[in-house]
C-alpha cells in the first residue's frame, strides 16, 4: 500500500511539473510573439513613392526620392493638402543604397520602398545602359516586381519636382493610375520592373519602357510650335503622334506620359511616339479599349496636311473605340536565313463619332469604313515594325518567340542568333477590323439633307 501511495504521489508530482513547464513555455511565447525585439512601427518609416535616377558627376548618380507625406495626404476621413502630399529629396551618391543612407541621416524616419510605384531613369543614363540599376532593384526585396519603370526625356529630378497630382491626393495611387493609363489610351507600353528585366534577359525579345516628360506649355499660342515639331509624316497629324513633353496641352499637372523608349539589351536606342506605342500594343496583344480617330474614308480627303489655322471645318474624322477581337497571330518562317514575319491582327470597334454626312449604318458604307480603318492600322503597324528593324534593330515585339519554339536544343537556339537575324526580317501585316456597334444612335440624319448646305 505505501508503495502504491508513493507511486501516486510521484505521478501527481510529474503532472504538476508538466503543467508548470507548459505554463512557463506559454508565458515565454507571449513575450517572443509580441515582436518588440526588432519591430519598426509604420510611422517610423518614410515611404518613397517614386525614385528618380539621373547621371551625376564623375560616374556618380543623382537620386531623387519623392516621399509621400501621410499627414498631408489625409488622416482618417479628413482630406489633406494636395500641394503638400509629397516632398522631394535629391542627393548625389555612387549607388542607390549609398544615397538611401545619406537621406536617412537627414530625415527622422527610415526610408522604405515597399510602396514605391515608379522608378524613373533619365534618358541620358538609359542610353549608357541600365543593367546594374535594374539588378539592384530586382535584388532588393522592398522593390516590388510590378512597380513601374519609365524613362524621363529630361532629368528625372525635374520631372519628379514638376509632378503635381491635381485630381488624386494620394501620390502612390496617382503614379499607379498614371502608369496604367495605357489600357485606355494606348499611347504608352505596359512598363513594369520585372517585365522589363525579363525582356532584358530574354534571347527573343527586347525591353521597352514608358516615356515621360514635363509639359511646360503655358499658352495655346505655343501649340503650333509643338505640333510642327511633333509631325511624323505628311498625311497624318492627329492625337497620339507626339512624344511626352511635346503634347499640345496646358494643365496644372505637368507630367505627361506618351510614347515608348526602345532598348537593345540594357541600352536605350530610341524613342517612339504615342501612335507607335499603340502599334506596339496591337502587335503584342496588350491593347485595351482605346479611342482611335482616322480621317473619314469618304470625306476625309478634304483635310490638308501641314495647315492648322482656318481649315478646321475641312477636317473630317471618324472616331472609334478599338480593342483586340483576338490575340494577334505572329508566325515566322525562315527563308534563305531571312525571317519572314507574318502578323495577323483582328480588331473590333464601336463608332463613337462621325464628322461627315456619311451614314455608316449601311452595310456597304460600313464595309468601306472597316476596310479603311484596317488599311490605316495596317500601314501604321507596318511602318512601326520597319522602324524597329531598320532604325533600332531591336525586336521589341518579341517576334522571335515563335522561332524559339521551333528549336529543340538550347545550344542550337543560342547559335542561331535571333537578334542578328531580326535585322534582315521581312514583314507581312494583315489587319481585319470589325465594327460591332454604333453607340446609342442607329443612324445619322445629316442637317444638310434637311435644310440644305450652309443653312
Amino acid at each position, binding site marked *: 500500500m505505501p508503495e502504491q501511495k508513493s507511486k501516486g504521489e510521484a505521478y501527481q508530482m510529474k503532472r504538476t511539473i508538466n503543467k508548470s513547464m507548459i505554463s512557463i513555455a506559454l508565458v515565454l511565447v507571449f513575450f517572443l510573439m509580441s515582436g518588440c525585439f526588432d519591430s*519598426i512601427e509604420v510611422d517610423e518609416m518614410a515611404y518613397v513613392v517614386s525614385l528618380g535616377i539621373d547621371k551625376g558627376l564623375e560616374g556618380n548618380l543623382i537620386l531623387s526620392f519623392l516621399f509621400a507625406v501621410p499627414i498631408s495626404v489625409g488622416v482618417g476621413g479628413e482630406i489633406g493638402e494636395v500641394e503638400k502630399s509629397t516632398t522631394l529629396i535629391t542627393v548625389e551618391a555612387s549607388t542607390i543604397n549609398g544615397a538611401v543612407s545619406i537621406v536617412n541621416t537627414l530625415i527622422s524616419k527610415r526610408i522604405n520602398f515597399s510602396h514605391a510605384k515608379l522608378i524613373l531613369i533619365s534618358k541620358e543614363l538609359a542610353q549608357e545602359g541600365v543593367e546594374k540599376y535594374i539588378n539592384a532593384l530586382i535584388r532588393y*526585396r522592398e522593390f516590388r*516586381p*510590378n512597380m513601374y519603370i519609365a524613362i524621363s526625356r529630361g532629368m528625372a529630378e525635374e520631372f519628379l519636382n514638376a509632378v503635381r497630382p491635381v485630381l488624386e491626393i494620394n501620390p502612390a495611387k496617382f503614379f499607379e493610375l498614371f502608369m496604367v493609363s495605357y489600357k485606355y489610351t494606348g499611347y504608352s507600353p505596359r512598363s513594369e520592373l520585372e517585365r522589363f528585366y525579363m525582356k532584358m534577359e530574354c*534571347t527573343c525579345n527586347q525591353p521597352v519602357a514608358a516615356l515621360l516628360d514635363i509639359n511646360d506649355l503655358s499658352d495655346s499660342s505655343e501649340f503650333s510650335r509643338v505640333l510642327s515639331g511633333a509631325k511624323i509624316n505628311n498625311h497624318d497629324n492627329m492625337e497620339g503622334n507626339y512624344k511626352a513633353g511635346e503634347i499640345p496641352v496646358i494643365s496644372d499637372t505637368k507630367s505627361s506620359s506618351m510614347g515608348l523608349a526602345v532598348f537593345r539589351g540594357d541600352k536605350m536606342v530610341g524613342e517612339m511616339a504615342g501612335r507607335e506605342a499603340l502599334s506596339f500594343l496591337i502587335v503584342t496583344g496588350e491593347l485595351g479599349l482605346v479611342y482611335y480617330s482616322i480621317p473619314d474614308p469618304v470625306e476625309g480627303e478634304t483635310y490638308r496636311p501641314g495647315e492648322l489655322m482656318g481649315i478646321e471645318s475641312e477636317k473630317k474624322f471618324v472616331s472609334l473605340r478599338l480593342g483586340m477581337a483576338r490575340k494577334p497571330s505572329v508566325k515566322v518562317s525562315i527563308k534563305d536565313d531571312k525571317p519572314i514575319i507574318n502578323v495577323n491582327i483582328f480588331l473590333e470597334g464601336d463608332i463613337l463619332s462621325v464628322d461627315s454626312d456619311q451614314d455608316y449604318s449601311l452595310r456597304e458604307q460600313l464595309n468601306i469604313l472597316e476596310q479603311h480603318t484596317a488599311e490605316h492600322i495596317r500601314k501604321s503597324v507596318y511602318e512601326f515594325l520597319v522602324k524597329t528593324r531598320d532604325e533600332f534593330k531591336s525586336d521589341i515585339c518579341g517576334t522571335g518567340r515563335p522561332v*524559339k519554339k521551333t*528549336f529543340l536544343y*538550347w545550344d542550337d537556339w543560342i547559335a542561331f542568333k535571333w537578334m542578328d537575324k531580326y535585322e534582315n526580317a521581312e514583314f507581312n501585316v494583315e489587319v481585319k477590323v470589325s465594327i460591332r456597334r454604333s453607340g446609342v444612335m442607329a443612324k445619322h440624319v445629316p442637317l444638310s439633307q434637311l435644310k440644305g448646305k450652309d443653312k
Partner: protein
Amino acid sequence: MKQKIKIGNFEAFCILINMFCTKLILDYPRFVAEEGGTAAWIIVLLVSLVLFVIFIIMARIYKNFSGKDILDVAESSLGMPGKIITGMLYILQFLYLVSIVLREFAEDIKVISLTTTPISIIIMLFCIGMLTGAFLGIETLARINAFSVPVLAAAFLLILFLSIPRFDTSKIAPWLGPGPAAIMKELIPNISAYSELIVLFFIIPYLDGKSDYVGIGKYAILVSGFFYTICTLTYMLVYQYPMATEFFLPVYQLARSIGIGRFLSRIEAIFILVWASSAFLYLSSGLYFITFLFKKSFGLKTRKPLIIPFAILIFSIAMTPENLYPAIRIEMEFYRQYAWILTIIVPLFLLITAYARTKIERRSISNEANN
C-alpha cells in the same frame, strides 16, 4: 498498459507529401532549372515516373517483410551490427537534412521577413516548434499533417493558379533544353529530391494494414510528382531560362509577382503562412525520426530524453555554414548528387540480402529437418 501507436493511411500519405514537397517551396525549381534549363520540368516529370517504377520493385521485394521497418530488415540481413550501421546512416542523413533545411528556412525568413532579427534567434524559434512536435510524437504529427497538408496544398495551388495569366509557352522552348543525354544523366541524381521516401519504411509497423505502405507510397510519389511537375512548369513558364536560375526562392518570387487588379496583390503573405507551417511540420517530423532511429538502433526504452540533445546538435550544425551560399552549395553539390543511394540502393541491398539470408536459413532448416 501502453497503447499501441497507430497511423492512418491518409495521415502517413500527408507526412510523406509534406516531407517531399517542402523542397518545392525552398529552392528545388531553381536547382532543377540550373541542371535542365528549359527542359527542367521534363526532368522532374521523368524522375517521378522512374521513382514510381523503382518503388514498385522495392515494394514487391518488401512484401516478404511486411510489418517490419527497414531497421528490422537490416537486422534480418546483417544482424545487430547491420541494424546499428543502417540506423546511424539514416540518423546522419536526417541530421544533415534537418539542419540544412532549418538553416535555409531561417535564412530565407531573414531575407524576406525578419530582416533585422539575428539568425540564431530565428533558428531558435524554429527549434521550439521542432522540439514541441518531436516531443508530442508521431501520432500527433501525423494528425497535424493530415489536417494541415490539404490546406497548405490548396494555398500552394492558388499561388500557381494565379500565375496562369503570365504563362508564355515560348519560355520553355527549346523543348529539350540541354538535350536527351543531359536529361537522362540528371534523372538518377534527382531522385535525391525524394530521399525522404525512406520515412515510409520507418513507419510501416505503425500502419493499420501490413501491405498499406504500397498504396501510400505509390500515391505519395504520384501526387508529389504532380506537385513537383506543375510547380516547376509554372515557374519556367513565368521566368524563362536562364533567368529562372537567379531567384533563390522561386515560389516566393511567383507569389510576389502576382497582381490581378489593384486588390489582389501582395499575396506572398499566403506563401509565408504555407511556408512556415510546412517547415515546422518537416522539422518536427525530421527530429522525431532521428530520435526514433536512435532509440530503435540501440534498443533504448524511451525516445524523449534524446530530443533536446539532438535539437542542440541540429542547432549547432545549422549554425556551422558561414552564410547562405555554402549551405546551398553543399546541398546542391553533395547531398542532391548522392542521397539517392540512401533512398534506393541501401534499402534494396538490405532487402535483397535479407531475402537471400532468410531463404538460405529456411533451406538449411528444412534440410536439417529432412536429415
